[in-house]
């Protein structure tokens, strides 16, 4: 799923410029790291892609859908083709780990058998199968992170948006999660991942887009993790 930003500016009231004149194109199947200091605009940019945020100026097109014009029903269908790992996980607290993952498949109209098979498979993949009957508050931070990833990939999305997916994980687990995301990308899913993890960016080299104060200040193929203005 390709992403295209044309002159996107987002100003939050009264006058906070979150994004400024962003031009960006991400091709289908690409892997992109979004880097930049906290508050630089990474999360806002990702939220623009999921249409949680609508730009003040400019156009965003995702998979051929002009997000400004999409209606409520089509937005639901569009979101079913996107996997999102939220910074704060946003799991459904009253559903078990298994039910959280199954929910995404239920809304897609899969049969109970398909749902059980697919959800089980993904929970095993992220390593929390044994914890499937626990509720999110009963899971550790790392387990919640894995569950959020499982929920994001269970529907084999065309686009995976991950906001700090390894933020709460130790290096070993972060590495495992990274391998998982790389595997998903290898299967053809476009991945956009916001991260502060220098080790991951420098180890698994891909395109790096750096944002500083709402502007793209660096866009490098096979880039490294570098702060704007450093060195």
């Amino acid at each position: 799923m390709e992403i295209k930003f044309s002159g996107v500016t987002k100003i939050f009231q009264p006058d906070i410029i979150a994004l400024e004149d962003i031009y960006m194109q991400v091709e289908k199947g690409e892997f992109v790291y979004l880097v930049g200091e906290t508050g630089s605009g990474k999360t806002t940019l990702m939220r623009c892609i999921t249409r949680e945020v609508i730009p003040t100026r400019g156009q965003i097109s995702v998979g051929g859908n002009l997000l400004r014009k999409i209606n409520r029903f089509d937005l639901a269908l569009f979101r079913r083709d996107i996997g999102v790992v939220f910074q704060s996980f946003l799991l459904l607290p009253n559903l078990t780990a298994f039910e959280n993952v199954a929910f995404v498949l239920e809304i897609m109209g899969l049969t109970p058998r398909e749902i059980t098979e697919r959800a089980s498979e993904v929970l095993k993949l992220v390593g929390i199968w044994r914890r499937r009957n626990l509720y999110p508050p009963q899971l550790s931070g790392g387990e919640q992170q894995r569950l959020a990833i499982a929920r994001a990939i269970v529907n084999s999305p065309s686009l995976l948006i991950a906001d700090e997916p390894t933020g709460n994980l130790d290096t070993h687990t972060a590495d495992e999660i990274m391998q998982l995301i790389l595997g998903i990308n290898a299967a053809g899913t476009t991945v956009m991942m916001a991260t502060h993890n220098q080790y991951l960016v420098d180890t698994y080299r891909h395109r790096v887009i750096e944002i500083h104060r709402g502007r793209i200040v660096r866009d490098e193929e096979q880039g490294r993790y570098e702060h704007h203005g450093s060195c």
Partner: protein
Amino acid sequence: MAAVRYACRDGWRLIVRHWGMSLLTIFTAMSVFFIIGASTLFVLNVRNIVSSLENQMTIQAYLKPKADVKAAEKAIKALPYVKETKLITKDMALERLRSRIGEQAKAVMLLGENPLPESIEIKVRKASDVAETARLLVAVPEIEDIVYAGRVAEKLTKVSGFVEKFSIVMLLVAIAASGVVLFNTIRISVYSREEEIGVMMMVGATSTYVTLPFVIQGFILGLTGAFFASLLLGGTYYAAVTRLKDMLPFIPFIESTKLTGKLAFMLICCGATVSLISSLMAVEKFIRKASKPL
């Protein structure tokens, strides 16, 4: 079909997993519908008492000697507001007099024959119709004299009008207050899941998919609350009527099980509908909020 199945399952899951909130909603719905039911029964009883008093209001039309009774009855029945007529023959009049004053009634027979005139007892639909009917009766040629309780009719008319207005206001206030309480309770229950609604929308759930379980939950809770309210109301009402009948035997309380059954059915339907609409409105608000981009 699968969506409906999931919605029913999720609706039930919402009830069970938030059992504290569910119990609170059922208790609120029960209290609310008990108040509405009790107000309705109170109003119905007051109306029944006034109506039975109105039914006792009669106009006595005394006929001229040798008047054509059938013609008089036909003319009276043709008048508007007349509900019922009854011919009181000379013998019946004497019998009534006897029952009222006892053996002294024999005195009237000293004249040789029964001097009491034949009369027609007329019942009208409402107390307010008495004066107008009396005015119309004057024009009937067979009638010699008319006797009715003018002042009582006037007062009863006023009471009846007041009871009618009061009962409507009382019911409206009870329904409005109850509706607001129930709506807010359900809204609080939905409000505690505002974030969940947002997350569901974010992972691609349609508004209908998100709404249905909450609506089913509201429907079940409202229905259950109203059902318990009906049971409680039925039990307390008949117990109260049994005691009141001993204390106030002259007051005609409603005892028809058919009527109370209808009221219970109405309360249960109302409970289910009000809760369903409240849930729908509350969820719709959060769905609109969740789907509105920043």
